[in-house]
C-alpha cells in the first residue's frame, strides 16, 4: 500500500464512522436531489448550475453542514430532455427519497415534473425561466423558482425603450420554448405598455444565418427598436448579422444572452446591445451600498478559483436555490417536507445573486423589478446602464 492509499483508507474509515454516528441518532445526511441539463444543447445552463451546486454543497459541508447534518447532493444529467428529467425526478423521489428537489435547467424539464412533485408533496426549486412554472400559483403549491420571470425581462426592456422614446418594436425570436415565451410576453405586454409590435420574425436555434429575417425587419416600415428573444450560439450569430447589415435601430435582447460567450461569439456585433440581467453580471459596477454587490463578487471569485471559468448568470440561479433551501431547512428546524415548504414560502429579504427574494403565498418567484438591472455591452464587457 502506498502512503496515499493508506491515507485515503483512513479517511474513508473516519468518514464512515462519522456517518455511522450521525445515522445512529436518526440523522443521515440531508438529501438534495437535482436533475440538470449538464450535457446537450442547454448545457451552457446545466453545466455552471451543476458546478455551482457541487462547489457550494462542499463549502457548506466543510463549515459544519445544516442543522448539524451534512448535505448530500445527487445530480442527474437530463441532457435538457423533458422525458429524461421526469425519469430522474421519479427516481430521486421514490428511490433516493430526497428531502428537496433543485433543478430543471429549462422550462421544459421543469414542466414535465410539476405534477409529480405536487403528488409527492415535495418542495421543488426550479431553475427554469418561464413564468408559467409558478403560475397559476394555486396549482403550484410545491413549486418555486429562482430565475427572473421572462415577463419581467420584457417589461424591463419596454420601460427602457419608452424612456428613449421608442415605441415601435420588431421581434426576432428563436423557435424554442424559452424564446417563444419571451415573444408571447412581448406581444401581450405591448398594448398595455403603449408599445406596438411592427414586425415579428422567427429562426431555428440550429440556423447558421439569420440575415433574411433581419433584412425583412430592416425593410419593414417604422421599426424603431429590435428585441431579440433567445439564448445560445444563435444569438451571437444574430448580433453579428445585425452588424453585417448595418442596421441602426437600438438592439435589445432578453436575459438569455447573459454570458461572456455571447459577446466573444458575436465578433464585435454585441457592442451597444442592451439587456436585462441579474446584478451578478455587473457586480463590479454596482455601488458599494447595493446589498447584492458583496455576495455577487464573492460568488464570482469562488467560481473562478474553482473552475477557472467566468461566471454566467445561470449558475447564480442554482446558488440562490441552494441558499433558499438551506435557509428554509434552518428555519423549519427539520426536513419535514410540509414545514420546509412553508418555510420557503415565508422567505423574506434573502439576499441572493439573482436578487433579493421575498416569497409569499401569491408569489413563488419572489423577485421584483428592482432585482433586474439594465445592462449594456461596452468594449466587450457587460456594464451597468446608468
Amino acid at each position: 500500500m502506498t502512503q496515499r492509499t493508506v491515507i485515503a483508507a483512513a479517511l474513508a474509515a473516519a468518514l464512515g464512522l462519522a456517518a455511522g454516528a450521525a445515522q445512529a441518532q436518526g440523522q443521515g445526511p440531508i438529501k438534495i436531489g437535482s436533475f440538470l441539463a449538464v450535457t446537450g444543447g442547454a448545457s451552457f445552463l446545466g453545466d455552471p448550475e451543476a458546478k455551482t451546486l457541487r462547489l457550494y454543497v462542499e463549502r457548506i459541508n466543510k463549515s459544519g453542514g445544516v442543522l448539524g447534518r451534512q448535505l448530500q447532493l445527487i445530480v442527474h444529467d437530463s441532457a435538457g430532455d423533458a422525458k429524461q428529467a421526469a425519469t430522474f425526478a421519479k427516481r430521486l423521489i421514490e428511490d433516493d427519497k430526497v428531502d428537496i428537489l433543485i433543478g430543471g435547467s429549462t422550462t421544459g424539464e421543469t414542466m414535465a415534473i410539476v405534477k409529480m412533485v405536487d403528488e409527492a408533496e415535495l418542495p421543488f426549486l426550479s431553475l427554469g425561466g418561464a413564468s408559467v412554472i409558478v403560475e397559476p400559483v394555486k396549482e403550484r403549491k410545491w413549486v418555486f423558482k429562482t430565475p427572473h420571470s421572462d415577463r419581467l425581462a420584457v417589461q424591463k426592456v419596454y420601460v427602457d425603450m419608452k424612456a428613449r422614446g421608442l415605441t415601435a418594436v420588431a421581434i426576432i425570436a428563436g423557435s424554442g420554448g424559452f424564446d417563444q415565451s419571451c415573444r408571447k410576453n412581448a406581444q401581450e405586454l405591448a398594448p398595455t405598455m403603449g408599445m406596438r409590435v411592427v414586425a415579428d420574425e422567427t429562426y431555428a436555434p440550429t440556423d447558421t444565418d439569420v440575415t433574411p429575417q433581419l433584412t425583412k425587419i430592416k425593410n419593414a416600415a417604422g421599426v424603431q427598436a429590435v428585441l431579440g428573444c433567445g439564448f445560445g450560439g444563435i444569438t451571437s450569430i444574430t448580433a453579428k448579422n445585425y452588424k453585417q447589415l448595418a442596421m441602426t435601430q437600438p438592439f435589445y435582447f432578453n436575459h438569455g444572452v447573459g454570458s461572456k460567450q455571447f459577446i466573444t461569439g458575436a465578433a464585435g456585433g454585441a457592442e451597444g446591445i442592451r439587456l436585462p440581467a441579474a446584478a451578478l453580471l455587473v457586480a463590479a459596477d454596482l455601488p458599494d451600498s447595493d446589498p447584492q454587490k458583496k455576495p455577487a463578487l464573492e460568488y464570482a471569485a469562488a467560481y473562478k478559483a474553482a473552475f477557472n471559468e467566468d461566471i454566467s448568470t445561470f449558475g447564480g440561479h442554482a446558488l440562490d436555490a441552494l441558499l433558499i433551501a438551506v435557509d428554509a431547512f434552518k428555519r423549519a428546524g427539520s426536513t419535514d417536507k410540509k414545514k420546509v415548504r412553508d418555510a420557503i414560502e415565508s422567505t423574506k429579504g434573502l439576499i441572493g445573486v439573482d436578487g433579493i427574494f421575498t416569497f409569499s403565498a401569491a408569489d413563488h418567484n419572489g423577485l421584483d423589478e428592482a432585482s433586474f438591472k439594465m445592462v449594456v455591452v461596452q468594449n466587450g464587457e457587460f456594464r451597468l446602464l446608468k
Partner: protein
Amino acid sequence: MAEFLQFLFAGLTSGAIYALVALGFTLIYSSSHVINFAQGEFVMLGGLATVGLLAAGVPLLPAALLAIVLTAAAGIALEKLAIEPARNAAVVTLIIITIGASILLRGAAQLIWGKDYHRLPAFTGETPLEIGGATLLPQSLWVIGVTILIVLGLRWFFGRTLLGKAVLATSHNRLAAQLVGIDIGFVLLLSYGLSAALGALAGILIAPITLTSYTVGTMLGLKGFCAAIVGGLGSGAGAVVGGLVVGLAEAMATGYVSSAYKDAVAFVIILVVLVFMPSGLFGRRGTDRV
C-alpha cells in the same frame, strides 16, 4: 432588388456550407456505399481542433493544417478500428457503426474542448462587402471559393488519377476490383482519411460564420446529408447543386413567405426529389438485376 440580393447572398452562404459538408458524404459513399453519419463530427473536429491550437498559441495556418491532419487521423482510425473489423457485415450495419462513432466523437470533443461555443477569426477581416445595397461577409467568399476548388479537385481525382479510378472501381464491384489487383483495404482507408480531411477543412472555413461547438456536427451533418440526397449521393457536382438548392430555398422561403416555415423547406425539397427523381438530381439511375 437590394432585398432580393440579400436573400440571395444568405442563401448562397448557407448553401455553400451545406455543399461543403455534403461533399464529405460523397467520398465515402463513392467507395463503399456507406453513408457516414460521423461526417458532421469531422466538421466539428476540424473547427474545434483549430480553436484549441489557436488558443495554445499556434498561428492560424499551421493550426488549420494540423487540425486537418488530426481529423484525417481520426477518420483513418474509424475505418481501421471500427469499419474494417466489420468488413463482412451488411452496409446497414456499417452505417450504424458510423452513428456510434459520431456519438463517441461528440463525447470526446465535449471532454476536450468543453461545452462552450467558440469562434474562429475570419480569414480576411469582418468588414462586410457591399454589393448593390446588400452585404456579404468576405468569409462567405472563402467558403464558396474553396467549395468550387474541392469539386474541381475531386473531379480530377476521380477522372484522371489511377487511385481515383481505383476508388470508383471498388464502389462498382468490389470483387472484380480485387481481381484486377486493387488493394481494397487501402482504398477504404484512403476514402475515410480524405473525407475526414474534407470535413475538417469545411469545419475550419465555416467556423467564423456559424461558430463551433461540440454539438455543431449534428445539425450540419443533417443539412449536408439533405444536400447530398437532393444532389444524388456519390456525385460531387450533385452535392454542390443540392447544397445550393437547399440553402437558396430556405433563404427565399424565409424572405418571401415566412420564417416560421424555414425548416420545413429542406424536407419538402427532399420529399419532392425522392418522389420524382429517386436517385437525386445528379445520381446515376440504379438498376438491379433480378
